[in-house]
Structure formats: C-alpha cells, structure tokens
C-alpha cells in the first residue's frame, strides 16, 4: 500500500474513532447522574461536567482491557491493518448512527464486536471461538444478573424493618469494597500486569499471606474500604436521611460514570489497537487518550440536553429504584472491564430498571418492546458481521490491496 493511502486511512480511522467516542460520551453517559439530578443532589451542568471528567478518567485508567479484546481478541491469526481498522470503525459507526437516527435500539458493543469479527474474517483471520463463548456467556448473563441484583437492592431498600440508615450504608460498603478491587492501569502492578487494583497492589507489596487460597491482604484492604464507605455514608444518613441518600447518589453516580467511561472507550479505540501500537509504535495510553478526549467532549457537549430529558424519568422512577438500577450497573461494568468483555452500558441499566420494578410488584414492561429490543440486538450483531465482511472485501478490491 502506498504511503499516502496509509496515512489517509490513519487520519480517517482516527477521526472515526474520535467521533465514535464522542457519540458514546454524549449518548451513553446520562444514566449515572440522572437520578442524582432528579433528586436535586446536583445541578445538570455540574453533573455533565463531572460525567465528562469521570468518564474520561475511567477511559484512561480502565479502558485498556476491553480495547485490547476488541482490537486483537476477536480474531486469531491476523492483525488489523489500517484499512481493516477503518472499515470496522465505519461499519460500527454506521450502525450506531442508524440507531440514533431511527430511534431503534442498536447497542454500540454489539455493532463494534460484530463489525470487527466480520472485518477480521474478511482479512483471512480465524474466529476466536473461545472468546466468543466468553463474550456470549457474559451477554446472556447480563440481563438476569443485572435484573436480579437490582431486584435484591430494591427489596432491601423497600423493607420497613431495615431503616435507611442501615440499608444505604450497607450498599455503600458493597460499592466501597468493589472500588478497592477495580483494575486501574495507573496503579503499578507488583506482579507486572497491565492493570492493578488498590487491593491487589497492597497484597502484592506486603509479604504474601494466604489462608485457604485467599489472599489475606486483599481481603483486609477490601474490608477496610467497605468499612470506611459504610461509616461515611452512615454518618451522613444519621445526620439526615435525605442528605445521606443524596451523597450516596452522587458518589454512586461518580463511580458508575467512571466505570461507564472505562467500559465504553474500548468500543471506539479497540479497532485502532494494532494500527496505533504495532504499526505506529504509539503507547497504549495515547490511544486511550484519544478516546477519553472524545468521551469528554461528547459528554460536555451532548450530555446536558440528555440529562435534562432523562433526569425527570429517574425522578419519577424514585430514588430506591434508581439506586437499584445503578448498583448492578457499576458491578457488571467492573466485572466486564476485569474480564475484558465489550458491553453496552445501556443494556445493563435497562435490566436494572426492570429488575427494580419487579421488586415493587409489577414492572409494567411491554413484552412486545422487549422482543423488539432483543431482536434488534441480534440483528445488529449479525448484520454488522456480514456488512463488516462485505465492506472490507469491497474496499480491498477498490484499493487493490
């Protein structure tokens, strides 16, 4: 391939990746703070500002694992060239644009995963069935697990015999315990891994002490984080239940926004992994920085309008059900990041909202709409594979490569 074509493709791929990150930042980051805005715990503009910063930080520090899966884990035997990366991104972006334009549910994670598989197969690579199996299992488990966690959370919050001064701090302690274990690329890993958690860092630096296969230091740090979170929110709720809940909503929104950035950026940057790192020799953080900037600007420019629209809905959903939807959102996003599995954040929240509703009796969901939604998820996945495959063939033929 001539040098000019290569650089044109690099530029095109970069712009497309940035645009995808922008769209992700603008469209998929409203749930974390919408409940807090609905409860008047934070203003819309401040929330949009925070979402941008937190999601970008999440993208920078947690985005690497999913980005790698998208960039190199889906296809064996070949590396994505500049043309392949551009084709994959354009295919995925076209699907997302179709979703935004028509109002049909087209999850970004499905579009990107499908497009990269299609392009990879078209390149002559072989399918990485093991990865597909892991991803498919995870995707299938998301609705029941997210819905189930939301159901349990909502049940806990609805119980009259458990006062909110206990229930909210308990949830805070769970969130705190998970925060101690989330994988961050900025924490140096004593064991040499790319990402490390606070708990893992401590357990790796202090003398190893395991009891029955469990790393004591990790457990201690996790419990410590949980205890501090519990105590902090407990004090706040005891002083005023209302204030305590608001504080928890903002903290929860922050960690969810952070997780959302970490789980979504890979969808925009993943296709460029090989191009940026192997062919251009740039560090991983450079690519993530591109995605993080896209998410940041998308959130700042697009989120306020969306937040205004959605915060009303969450306010009507009620604080308990909002919390019940966000807690699984955080947990599942972090598990996905730890396992490097591309996910659509919205899909988790949908299940959470339904699960929380079931705890109150009837969820009032429409079977037809759920059917349509599921149908579009499958269509998105299938069609993006086919179109990615065909489009790469076409481009390769036109460019004579």
């Amino acid at each position, binding site marked *: 391939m001539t040098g000019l074509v290569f650089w044109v493709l690099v530029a095109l791929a970069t712009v497309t990746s940035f645009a995808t990150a922008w769209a992700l930042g603008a*469209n*998929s980051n409203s*749930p974390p703070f919408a409940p807090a805005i609905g409860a008047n715990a934070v203003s819309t503009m401040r929330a949009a500002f925070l979402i941008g910063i937190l999601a970008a930080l999440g993208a920078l520090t947690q985005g690497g694992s999913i980005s790698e899966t998208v960039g190199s884990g889906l296809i064996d035997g070949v590396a994505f060239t500049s043309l392949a990366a551009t084709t994959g991104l354009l295919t995925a972006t076209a699907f997302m644009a179709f*979703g*935004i334009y*028509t*109002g*049909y*549910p*087209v999850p970004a994670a499905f579009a990107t995963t499908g497009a990269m598989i299609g392009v990879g197969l078209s390149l002559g690579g072989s399918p990485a069935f093991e990865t597909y199996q892991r991803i498919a299992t995870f995707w299938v488990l998301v609705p029941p697990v997210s819905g189930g966690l939301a159901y349990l959370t909502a049940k806990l919050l609805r119980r009259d015999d458990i006062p909110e001064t206990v229930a909210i701090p308990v949830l805070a302690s769970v969130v705190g315990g998970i925060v101690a274990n989330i994988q961050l690329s900025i924490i140096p890993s004593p064991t040499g891994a790319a990402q490390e958690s606070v708990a893992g860092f401590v357990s790796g630096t202090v003398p190893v002490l395991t009891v029955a296969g469990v790393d004591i230091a990790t457990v201690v740090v996790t419990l410590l984080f949980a205890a501090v979170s519990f105590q902090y929110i407990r004090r706040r709720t005891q002083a005023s239940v209302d204030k305590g809940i608001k504080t928890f909503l903002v903290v929860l929104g922050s960690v969810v926004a952070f997780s959302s950035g970490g789980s979504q950026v890979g969808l925009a940057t993943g296709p460029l992994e090989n191009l940026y790192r192997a062919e251009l020799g740039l560090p991983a953080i450079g690519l993530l920085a591109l995605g993080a900037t896209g998410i940041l600007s998308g959130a700042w420019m697009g989120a306020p*309008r969306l937040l205004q629209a*959605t915060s*009303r*809905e969450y*306010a*009507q*959903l009620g604080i308990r059900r909002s919390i019940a*939807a966000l807690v699984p959102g955080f947990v599942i996003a972090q598990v996905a990041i730890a396992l490097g599995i591309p996910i659509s954040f*919205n899909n988790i*929240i*949908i299940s*959470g*909202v*339904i699960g929380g509703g079931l705890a109150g009796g009837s*969820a*009032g*969901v*429409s079977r037809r*709409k*759920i059917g349509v*939604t599921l149908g579009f998820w499958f269509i998105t996945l299938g069609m993006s594979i086919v179109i990615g495959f065909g489009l790469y063939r076409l481009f390769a033929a036109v460019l004579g490569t």
Partner: protein
Amino acid sequence: MHHPRSDRPVLVGVDNLDTVQQLVRTAGDLASLGSGTVRLVTVAVKRSDSPFRVFNDETIVREFADSSHELLDRATTPEDVAVERGVLVARSATKGLLAAVEETDPAALVVGWRAQERRTDAVFGTTVDALVERAPCDLYVERVGHEANGVDSVLLPVAGGPHVETAARAATAIAARNDARVLVFSVETSGDAASFVAEGRDALADVDGPDVPVETAVRESDDVTDALVTEAAAHDVVVLGATRKGALRRNLAGSVPRKFVDRTDRTVILARNGDVVDGPLRGLGRLLRR
C-alpha cells in the same frame, strides 16, 4: 380537500410549555369552523437509549411522563371549543404525531416551529420537515414565540398552487374569531398576480364559515420577499400557503417563505394542503416506514 362541517377534531402537537397556548388558540380558531373540538397531543419520546423504552405505553403514560401531563395541563380552553388531551408514546416526535394523525383522522394538524432553532436535533425543525412531507392531512405550521396581541388584520399572500384553500381556511378562521379583515395579496412578477388574487378571493368565499371582510391588493416589485416583508408590517397575522411548486419543504428550507419568516416579527402560519401527500406511492411509503 373539501371540508364539510365535520366531527373531526383539529389536532395540535405541542412540545413546549411556553408555546402551548399560542398553538391551542390557532387550533381553536380552526376548530370553530368545524367540529369545535381541539385535540391536544404531546409525545412522550422514549429514545433508543432510554432504559424506560421497554415499559408498556400505559406505564410510561402513567408513571414516566410527568412533563407531558404538565404541558397538557398548561393549556387553557379557548372559548366555545372543547379540548381533549392525550399523551402518546413514540420513538420520536414525528412518529408520535403521524400515529396521532392516523388514529384521529383530524381536520387539520397544527404544530409550532421555532425559527431560531439551530440545533439539528430540536424537536421541531426535523419534525416539521417530516410532517410537511408525510402528514396526510391539512397542516399548519405556526412560527411560535411571535404571538399577535389582538388581531385586526390577516394577510393572505397568494401565488397560486394547491395550498391556497388550506391557507384561506385558516385566514377565515382567525379573522372570524377576532372580527378582523383579510387582505388577499400578491406580488406582480409574471403578469399572473390578478388571477392569483381572484383565486384567493374565491377560496375565501368557499370556506364554510362566517363571512369575513375581504380586501385585495397587488404590488409591483422585483423582490417578492421585500414586498411581503413591507406589507406584513401592516398586519397582525400572515397565513402563507406554499407556492405552486407544491412541496412546502423546499420553501421552508430556502425560498420565499423561509426568507420572509426570518425578516418579519409577525405571527406567521404556513399552510400545506393534505391532498399533496396523497399519492400512489404513499401507501407503499407507509408500509416501508412501519
């Protein structure tokens, strides 16, 4: 489209607290010529990325559409007119309003349009364009935010085309309810102005409703927009039919009405005849859009 006194309501699509009343007033004027019923609808838009979209319509209308209900409650009922209210759930405002048209088979649809909106995702803008193209009933697009305070004179610019009747109907309705006069006006560019004015006058006479005082005027001018802007200053409301070319869309996008709207502070209502939407391909188009 012939309009016998019918029981078909005038449908109003609203999306903004500040402009509900203005649109309801116009719809009330139109309804007073016919059934006397205004049906006020607002669309609870659940976008593809909203987790709330999986709820059934009843649940959404009951639990997740507070702002829509607030909007509908804001409208006060105009004199001698019955107002029905309804919230619809749809993926977009366009889809919701088209569904409402299909369901109610209204005498006309009235929607608002904010000329200053720059954002492409504004509810009206893209929505109005789509409705102009697809809504199978008479359509009135009122520029909101510039509401006449008392109406003494209604300007009806004419230049032929299929939308004159539709425009004449709104001009009559507004004039009748406000004891105002209507001036049929045309700009002489190709020697047809006198016949356009006569046609406009006939259209006004054909409207099934109270008689209103009608005057006519023809101006000589090289610039249609200039002449319109100058004349409009002496009136309170301008009812503009689309030109002969048919599609109002083209005019909204660039030509005379669009330029005119930008240069006047009068209340402007654009009228589009529902018959232009009925075509051999419409049924097919509807099937494809489902």
